[in-house]
């Protein structure tokens, strides 16, 4: 069973990653990732909604009839997002001001409804919770990665204003890589988001191809080793 959960995590973080494999939930991804801090905040909010929506939907999956399931899912998710919206507004108001529109937009984040439909409506509560967590963490990872790339290239800092936006506990993340950096505005403007995602996707694909080639090379060597004694 633990191996099964490991598979779920590998799925969420790499193989079936929301952004790099499914290419869903792109709008918040591009819009908020001008810094890694914003990415982290958005990722954690989405993870919270994904986790709770998976748990809620998995626990009442027997009560929802097949015909009306999509509207019911959408309403459940909308209620959870309303809660998240109010909670962030109350406790993390600075973050709320930065993310703004994109917190209510978690409702139409296709990955949340997608996981509800594909996973939570068919599985047990615990498995759905793990799946929601894994998918959310994968999404957070993608947000931080893209936010980090854009922030480093654009202003040579990493996790700037983390203590201001997420609370004092996150102050240790703030780093400045190059003091008095002139700045590369393009990366912080909208085009930068598209360009960084394009290059990261190509990078992921090239890495996977290299792994495949290495695995193929190894299996070829093994078969040769197995065949050679019989040939002799």
């Amino acid at each position: 069973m633990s191996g099964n959960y490991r598979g779920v995590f590998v799925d969420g973080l790499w193989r079936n990653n929301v952004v790099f494999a499914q290419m869903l939930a792109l709008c918040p991804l591009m819009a908020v990732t001008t810094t890694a801090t914003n990415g982290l905040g958005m990722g954690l909010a989405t993870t919270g909604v994904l986790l709770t929506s998976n748990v809620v939907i998995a626990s009442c999956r027997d009560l929802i009839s097949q015909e009306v399931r999509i509207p019911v899912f959408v309403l459940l998710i909308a209620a959870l997002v309303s809660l998240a919206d109010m909670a962030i507004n109350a406790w993390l108001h600075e973050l709320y001001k930065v993310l703004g529109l994109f917190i209510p937009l978690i409702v139409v984040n296709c990955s949340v409804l997608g996981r509800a439909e594909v996973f939570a409506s068919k599985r047990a509560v615990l498995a759905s919770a793990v799946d929601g967590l894994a998918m959310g963490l994968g999404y957070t990872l993608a947000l931080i990665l893209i936010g980090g790339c854009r922030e480093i290239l654009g202003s040579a800092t990493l996790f700037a204003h983390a203590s201001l936006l997420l609370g004092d506990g996150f102050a240790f993340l703030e780093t400045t890589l190059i003091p008095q950096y002139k700045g590369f505005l393009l990366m912080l403007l909208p085009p930068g988001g598209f360009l960084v995602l394009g290059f990261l996707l190509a990078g992921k694909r090239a890495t996977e191809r290299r792994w495949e080639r290495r695995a193929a090379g190894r299996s070829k060597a093994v078969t040769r080793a197995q065949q050679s004694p019989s040939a002799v």
Partner: protein
Amino acid sequence: MRDYLFILLGTALVNNVVLVRFLGLCPFMGVSNKVDSAMGMGLATTFVLTLAVSICWLLERYVLMPLDIQFLRILAFILVIAALVQFTEMFIRKASPMLYQVLGIYLPLITTNCAVFGMALLNIQQPHSLLESLLFGFGSALGFTLVLVLFAGLRERLALANVPEAFAGAPIGFIAAGLLSLAFMGFVGLPTR
């Protein structure tokens, strides 16, 4: 009159929904393989977006605000949009089966288009009248359609181009979108009011 023109221009070109506000990227990447389907998606979205923005404005002004229940906004708006998409689908099927055939699967997809929901939310944050809301929705939908069709044209050419193996398909699509977005940054100089 000038104000109305500026709202239209501002939403369609300067603050383009897809390339500047980053809303509606999923259909932008998903249904931009062919110019025909991009056109169909654009038309259907134009219809729903314009109506949704106006109806959400009415709902906010005459129901949510007088009753002081604005915390239900997310729920109310998503219901309106889902119902609107459903009615549009039924109406088009009855009124023009031809158009229904053309739009087909794109209609239900509009519910999860964050451009519709996002523009409805953005619209009520501004002091717009009903007519201005209508134009705000229509202008942004025009911008969406324009960019979708332009990008579909680019991708039809890209499909024939010889790109490095790792970049083929989606990655080169994103880079092309980045360049298109860079071109749209040029509209920033246009006056919006």
